[in-house]
């Protein structure tokens, strides 16, 4: 093999990676530039590549009606949704790993099916139900309805993490007098912590970005960030600058979360891959 052929061969993967990154990052880059440009520059044709950034769009976005409120709503929904998913998902995952649970397979398959169903299927019946029991337009209601996808996902993922924990650990703890709750909280949860962290991150991203259900089941009090961004579309005009700034603001927490937790996610998702 000639030197240049070997070089080309090595170059290939990099070229693919560069293209992939460029394609996936371009929308964010574009939004960012719009958020940082003046209204005039934002839609100049050809695009203005060099400009001095302006920050006023961010201020405008944050102080726009309902945006900061929606931001905190989303945080609360995420936190609550994760708490609910873990509170039910951890014990469920533990039990569904046991051999002798009757109907185990059926339960697991149903969970998977409900995870795969499109979300809007739930919306109409839930709209009626939520209206009648007072959960419509509440963050608690949203966190609850989000369990439709977070809980199955949590159970399936945690079950895989728990399955990597040798059963002898539970037995050893049992011989020492630990009951099931104690075994789950003092043995399984700490050992599967990277896996739980990965689950929380993936659930958070899903809930943070959710639009369909939030659109149907909230009005103004429990509005989430995705709706708030859509709200920048006025009757007559769209404030593209503020909308882009708002988009950047809502991308930030998840991006930060992902960067900080990247090692955990990788560690979690590869847990047990190497003994």
């Amino acid at each position, binding site marked *: 093999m000639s030197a240049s052929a070997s070089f080309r061969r090595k170059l290939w993967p990099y070229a693919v990676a560069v293209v992939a990154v460029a394609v996936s990052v371009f929308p964010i880059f574009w939004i960012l530039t719009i958020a940082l440009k003046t209204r005039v520059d934002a839609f100049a044709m050809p695009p203005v590549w060099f400009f001095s950034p302006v920050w006023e769009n961010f201020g405008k976005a944050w102080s726009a009606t309902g945006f900061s409120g929606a931001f905190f709503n989303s945080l609360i929904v995420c936190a609550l949704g994760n708490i609910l998913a873990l509170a039910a998902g951890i014990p469920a995952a533990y039990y569904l790993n046991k051999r002798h649970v009757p109907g185990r397979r059926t339960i697991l398959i149903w969970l998977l099916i409900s995870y795969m169903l499109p979300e809007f299927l739930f919306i109409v019946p839930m709209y009626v139900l939520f209206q009648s029991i007072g959960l419509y337009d509440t963050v608690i209601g949203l966190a609850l309805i989000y369990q439709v996808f977070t809980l199955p996902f949590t159970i399936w993922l945690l079950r895989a993490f728990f399955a990597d924990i*040798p059963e*002898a*650990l539970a*037995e*050893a*703890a*049992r*011989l*020492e*007098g*630990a009951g099931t709750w*104690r075994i789950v909280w003092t*043995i399984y949860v*700490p*050992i599967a*912590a990277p896996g739980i962290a990965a689950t929380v991150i993936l659930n958070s991203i899903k809930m943070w970005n959710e639009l369909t259900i939030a659109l149907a089941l909230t009005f103004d009090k429990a509005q989430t960030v995705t709706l708030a961004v859509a709200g920048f579309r006025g009757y007559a005009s769209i404030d593209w600058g503020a909308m882009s700034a708002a988009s950047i603001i809502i991308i930030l927490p998840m991006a930060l979360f992902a960067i900080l937790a990247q090692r955990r996610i990788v560690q979690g998702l590869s847990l047990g891959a190497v003994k």
Partner: protein
Amino acid sequence: MSAVSLQGIDISYGSVDVVRNLDLDIKSGEFVVFVGPSGCGKSTTLRLIAGLEEGRSGRVSIGDKVVNDVDPAKRDVAMVFQNYALFPHMSVADNISFGMRLRGEPKEKIRANVADVARMVGLSDHLHKRPGALSGGQRQRVALARAIVRKPAVFLFDEPLSNLDAEFRAAMRSELSRLHRELGSTMIYVTHDQVEAMTMGDRIAVLAPLAQTGHSNLMQFGTPEEVYHRPANLFVAKFIGSPPMNLFDGRADEGGIRFGEIRLPMEGQVPAAITVGVRPEHVLLNTGEGPFMTGTVEGTENLGHEKLWFFATEIGRIVARTPDTGNFRLGEAVNLRFPAERLHLFDAATGGRREART
């Protein structure tokens, strides 16, 4: 310290019987080894004693109490698992003290007990470490310490040395024996390694898979000497001893038995088909008197302190073990003699031991 008694134990997984009709009386303070090939139910039986497995029928007693319905934690047993079952997210000290902390014992007492036990098993310098930072042998010690600190009536060991390398295993064997002498507790030890069984056990329970025996798992329960020198049946004869006992077919012949050119008188009813066994170290090569058969040297293995010789004979292959002094050439014809008092006779049909009178 407590006796352990199993009566009429049956255990099955679903529709598959694993243990059937097992009776076993283990004396207080005894070191008993359950040995057998995989699938013989040895671990299952141990787990039944611990309470981690439920039997279909039968009675388990520890001390003078029937424990069938007693929670594992209240049976006063401690178990050492094959894969150590250490809690990877806790320090060595926390692993050892897990049970004491759970029971809410005073901090001072926990610290003192942990320090004592750590000293006993040589872990004093490692108490703050996580199991992941320890060698296999050290992890095994942590598992051991966690068992010892409970001061249980009965210790249960489930193949605890099988993950260690040979060098460590020998050291841990003698350490466990020392521990048994010091603590005087009843210990039940499961292994498939007959060397462990022979070297450690006060008594050995040889178990066989039901698929091989059909009726019951327990093939013999006796001291290492009994099991080795007076195997109760063909299964034990084949399983205990390395290299295994030479076994060959014999037949009834005028009030005795005959195999090859050798005839042996036998009293009582002689079964039509009999299996004759002799341990490799009891085969005499070109020495002794009386009837012999000729074997041709097929091969040899030099183990340093001894040699194994493989002979082709008219009744099949025979292995002999000699001190490293003997020397034969490949293909050389050697006179093989089998001292009558060293022969083991088994009914070929039932596999049961027969006593020969000569």
